[in-house]
């Protein structure tokens, strides 16, 4: 009985400690976002110009430099999906195959896989760069020069991932459909016209707000969570890879949960599950 009591107590202590940690992280995450937003609207023409230039450069790094990777992933995802649909549906379901590909890719796969690629590629870079800046006292040095670290460091990265994920999602969707088209061409070149009409039917105007809300949110999550973990680095260089890894894992989990919640909320509540 005494052992059971101790085990229960230790379980409660563990749960309490985890809840407290989660509460602290949530609070700190929120503060990071508030500080970035507040500092972004602080006065200063020079500050605005410097940060705008930084943001443009960050968007270039996050989106343009990821195009080759996105191309490869999207082409093969599209091709694989088409091949699987062809196996399941056969020649009689070509229109459905095209429709399924476009629907699945545009609504679900493109936003999520793009966010995963951005988190893996740019999220790691964001957390590592900020972590190294922390270790080298660069962030303190910026503050000493009258430069607001949230504005100079967090805001450009947050904006860049928020802008890049929607842009890359559009590109991913296009390349995935192209990949599916190429795959079908090799499977049965005569089926392309039927498949294409199905693909066009798969697109719906209602998808636009969903994809926009999803991609903007996913992009913001990656920039936000990874910046936060970068700032979590203390004074030791060994913390940098630890926090970078944590940043990517946590941002991926956040993205997957956000994606599912938005999909369910959108189709379940807003359109009442009527969309076909």
């Amino acid at each position, binding site marked *: 009985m005494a052992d059971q009591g101790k085990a229960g107590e230790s379980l409660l202590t563990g749960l309490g400690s985890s809840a407290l940690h989660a509460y602290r992280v949530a609070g700190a995450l929120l503060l990071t976002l508030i500080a970035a937003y*507040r500092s972004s609207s602080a*006065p200063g023409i*020079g500050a605005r110009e410097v940060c705008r230039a930084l943001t443009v450069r960050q968007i270039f790094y996050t989106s343009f430099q990821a195009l080759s990777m996105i191309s490869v992933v999207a082409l093969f995802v599209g091709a694989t999906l088409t091949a699987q649909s062809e196996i399941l549906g056969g020649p009689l379901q070509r229109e459905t195959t095209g429709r399924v590909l476009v629907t699945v890719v545009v609504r679900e796969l493109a936003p999520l896989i793009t966010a995963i690629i951005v988190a893996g590629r740019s999220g790691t870079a964001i957390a590592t760069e900020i972590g190294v*800046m922390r270790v080298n*006292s660069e962030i303190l040095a*910026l*503050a000493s020069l009258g*430069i607001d670290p949230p504005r100079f460091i967090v805001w450009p990265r947050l904006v860049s991932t928020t802008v890049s994920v929607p842009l890359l999602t559009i590109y991913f969707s296009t390349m995935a459909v192209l990949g599916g088209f190429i795959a079908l061409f090799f499977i049965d070149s005569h089926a392309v016209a039927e498949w294409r009409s199905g693909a066009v039917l798969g697109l719906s105007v209602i998808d636009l707000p969903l994809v926009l809300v999803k991609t903007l949110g996913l992009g913001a999550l990656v920039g936000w969570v990874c910046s936060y973990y970068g700032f979590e680095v203390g004074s030791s260089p060994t913390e940098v890879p630890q926090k970078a890894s944590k940043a990517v894992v946590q941002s991926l989990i956040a993205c997957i949960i956000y994606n599912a919640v938005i999909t369910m909320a959108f189709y379940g509540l807003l359109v009442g599950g009527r969309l076909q």
Partner: protein
Amino acid sequence: MSDNEAPPPVDLLRVDAIAGARLPRRERDREPGLTLDRVDFDYQGHVILAGMDFELERGASAVVTGQNGCGKSTLLYVAAGLLPPRRGTVLHAGNPLGALFPSARVQRGIRVGFVFQEGGLLANLDALSNVSLALRYHYDVLALDETSLMAQAEAALETAQVSRTDWHRQPAHLSFGIRKRLALARALAIKPNFFFFDDPDVGLDPRTAQVTHQILCQLRDDPEVTLFVATNRPQLIERLEVPGYRLSAGQLSSHSGKSSLPPSGSFTRPGA
């Protein structure tokens, strides 16, 4: 005495007397400079500053000494407004720093120059960009155009004797001494009215140390600059001839004996 000349030997026991000799100038300028009002700071329970009260008038200078790890650097960070105190208030020229973004401080005329022990240079920018960054960021507040901005940055690099051949190199490609001078140039570029220097001449060759000492003496003599230096180097303390304080157990106390300084002979005189 010119700053280039070797300073006369100074009795380290008499730092207070030296400080007193410079007091008349301070008496004339009774404007608020750096103020620490009941400041507490700790690292996860390890107390660094305990209810510290400290006042340095505008244009005044001070040196803080103390054993390794006693918190001299942390004191400078807190005093410069880079780390927020757990409790208490830090004021620059009467302005509490807590509620102000770093950029808002510049807009209120508080320009801080801070030289870190390890430089704190931005690794992805070359030397010139490191120095001009703050000027570009605040060009509207400082009323600078592109030409005057670059001229000011170049003047700071020249003052700190950073060779032109190094201006377009990134910090990783510069030697330790040049990086230190570059950090000094960056801090000088904004024409600071509060200057903090953490261990100015640690690890420097005699020439770089000499340059650093000369610049510190110029800052000390500038009535607009409030100078706060953390060092344990008797030679620099002798040369600066400003009030000295010892940090111990979270409190500052005036220098009053050799115990506050490292043993003599632990340093080499530049040019010796």
